[in-house]
C-alpha cells in the first residue's frame, strides 16, 4: 500500500515536469494556433545548454537557469519575429513543415556537438537531498519540479488575466483579426508568446537534465509527453495542462510500480483512454 501511494506521489511530482514541458506548447497553440514540432528538441537543447554551463564552465545549476531562460526567451522572440511570423496564417502546414525541419536540424546539430551518448546533469547535493514526509521520502528535485510548475502556471495565469498583453493574447485566440483593430501588433504579440514559451522550455530543460538521462534524440518523446499532457488537460487551459501532466506522471509511476518496462506504456494507455472517453480533454476552455 505504501509502495502504491509512493508511486502516486512521485508520479504527481513528475507531472510537474510534464506540465512544464507542455506549458509552452499549450501557450503557443492557444495564442497562435501553431504547433511547434521542435518543442521537445528545444527542451533537450536547453538541457545540453545547462550541461555546457555546469559541467564545462563550472557554474551552479541555478545560475544556468538565470542565463538560459533569458537567452531562450530572446531567441524565441527573434525566431518568431524573423522566421515563424512569415509562416503564420490560415494554413498550418508551412509552420509544421518548418518546425519539423528545425527538429531534424537541431537533433543532428546536437548529435554532432555532443555525440549520441546519454548524459545527465550532475547537480551535486541536490541530486540526493530529500525531505521525509511520514513514510515517504520526497526528493528535492521532484519537489523543485512541482513547485516550479505551480509557480510558472500560476504566473502565466496572472499574466493572462491581469496584464493588457495577456488579455490581448487571450483575445487573439478568440478573434485574431479584431485584435489588430484594438491597435495591437500581432507580430509582436506572437513573439512575446513564443518568448515566454521558450523561457519555460529552458526551465523545463534544465530540470529535466537534473532529473533524467537525455541524449540528442530524446526530444521526440518529450514532445509526445507534452502533447499528451496538453490534450488530456484540454487545449488552452493552463491548469488543465497541470492536471494532464499529473495524470501522465501518475500513470507512468503506477506502470513502473507494476513493472519498470510498463512506465511509458502506461502513460500512453491512460492517454488513449481519456482521448476516447473525453476527446475535448478534462478542462476544455469554455467556448460559446
Amino acid at each position, binding site marked *: 500500500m505504501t509502495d502504491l501511494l509512493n508511486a502516486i506521489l512521485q508520479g504527481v511530482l513528475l507531472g510537474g515536469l510534464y506540465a512544464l514541458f507542455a506549458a509552452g506548447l499549450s501557450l503557443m497553440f492557444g495564442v497562435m494556433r501553431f504547433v511547434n514540432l521542435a518543442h521537445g528538441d528545444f527542451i533537450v537543447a536547453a538541457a545540453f545548454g545547462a550541461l555546457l554551463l555546469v559541467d564545462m564552465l563550472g557554474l551552479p545549476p541555478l545560475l544556468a537557469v538565470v542565463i538560459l531562460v533569458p537567452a531562450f526567451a530572446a531567441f524565441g522572440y527573434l525566431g518568431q519575429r524573423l522566421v515563424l511570423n512569415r509562416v503564420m496564417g490560415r494554413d498550418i502546414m508551412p509552420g509544421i513543415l518548418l518546425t519539423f525541419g528545425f527538429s531534424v536540424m537541431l537533433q543532428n546539430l546536437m548529435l554532432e556537438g555532443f555525440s549520441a551518448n546519454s548524459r545527465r546533469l550532475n547537480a551535486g547535493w541536490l541530486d540526493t537531498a530529500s525531505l521525509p514526509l511520514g513514510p515517504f521520502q520526497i526528493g528535492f528535485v521532484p519537489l523543485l519540479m512541482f513547485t516550479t510548475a505551480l509557480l510558472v502556471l500560476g504566473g502565466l495565469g496572472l499574466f493572462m488575466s491581469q496584464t493588457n498583453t495577456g488579455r490581448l493574447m487571450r483575445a487573439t485566440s478568440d478573434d485574431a483579426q479584431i485584435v489588430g483593430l*484594438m491597435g495591437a501588433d500581432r507580430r509582436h504579440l506572437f513573439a512575446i508568446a513564443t518568448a515566454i514559451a521558450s523561457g519555460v522550455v529552458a526551465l523545463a530543460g534544465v530540470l529535466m537534465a537534473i532529473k533524467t538521462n537525455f541524449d540528442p534524440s530524446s526530444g521526440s518523446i518529450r514532445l509526445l509527453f507534452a502533447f499528451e499532457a496538453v490534450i488530456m488537460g484540454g487545449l488552452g487551459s493552463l491548469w488543465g495542462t497541470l492536471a494532464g501532466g499529473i495524470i501522465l506522471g501518475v500513470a507512468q509511476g503506477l506502470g513502473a510500480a507494476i513493472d519498470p518496462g510498463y512506465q511509458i506504456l502506461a502513460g500512453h494507455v491512460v492517454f488513449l483512454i481519456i482521448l476516447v472517453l473525453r476527446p475535448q480533454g478534462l478542462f476544455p476552455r469554455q467556448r460559446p
Partner: protein
Amino acid sequence: MTNLLSVRNLDAFYGDFQALFGVDLDVEAGEVVALVGANGAGKSTFLASVTGLLPTRPGSILLRGANIAGEPAFRIARAGVAMSPEGRRLFASLSVEENLRLGATGGRKGHWSLEKVQALFPILKEKRRQGASELSGGQQQAVAIGRALMANPDLLLLDEVSLGLAPVVVRDIYESLPAIRAAGTAVIVVEQDIGRATEISDRLYCLQEGRVNLTGRSRQLTRDQIGAAYFGRARSAA
C-alpha cells in the same frame, strides 16, 4: 483645411473579385456620415479597407492628409480609427470589462475612459464581470461600441449596429450617438434602414454594386432618391 478622412478612387479586391470601384468619400471632423446600400453593395468592404483589414492601394485613403491605405490595421487604429464591426466580434472568452479595456490598447488620450463608457451604457458597468458571450444582442452591441470608444478615435465606424436587434434596442443604441459626437468623434454609420440613416446623419452616401451612386446632405435627399439609388434604378433612369 484637410478633411479628417479622404477616400479617393478606392478600388478593393477579394482575390480576383473586385468589390469596390473608384469610391470617393469624405468625412469632416465631428461629422456623422451614413453609408447605405443593399447587401453586397460594398459597405463592409469599404469599412474593411479604411481600417486596414483589407489591404488597398497606397494613396487611396488619407487620414488628416496622411496616407493610411496599405498600412497594417494596428497602425490605422493607433492613428485614430476605431470600428464596431459587423456581427460585433467581441472576444468571447473575455469579460465585458476586459473587452472594453482592450479597446484602449493604442493608448490614445481623450474624452473616453472606462468610467465614461460605463456612464454612456450603464448596463456595461452592471455586467462588467460577465463573459461577453453571455450578454443579449443589444448589450453585446453596446460592448462593441464601448470597446471602440475606449480607443478615443477621431473616426468611429459603426457597421450594421441594428443587425438582429429589436427596434427599441436599436433606438437605445443610437441614442448614444449625440454623446459620441459631442466628444468630437466623427462617425461613419453603415445602416440598412434608410429612414434611420437619414435621420441620424449629416450627409449620406449610397453604394450600389461597389460604386457610389448617390451622395448629398441627408436632409436634402428625398426618400425616393435614396430608394432609387439603393435598388439601382438611379443609373438606369439616368
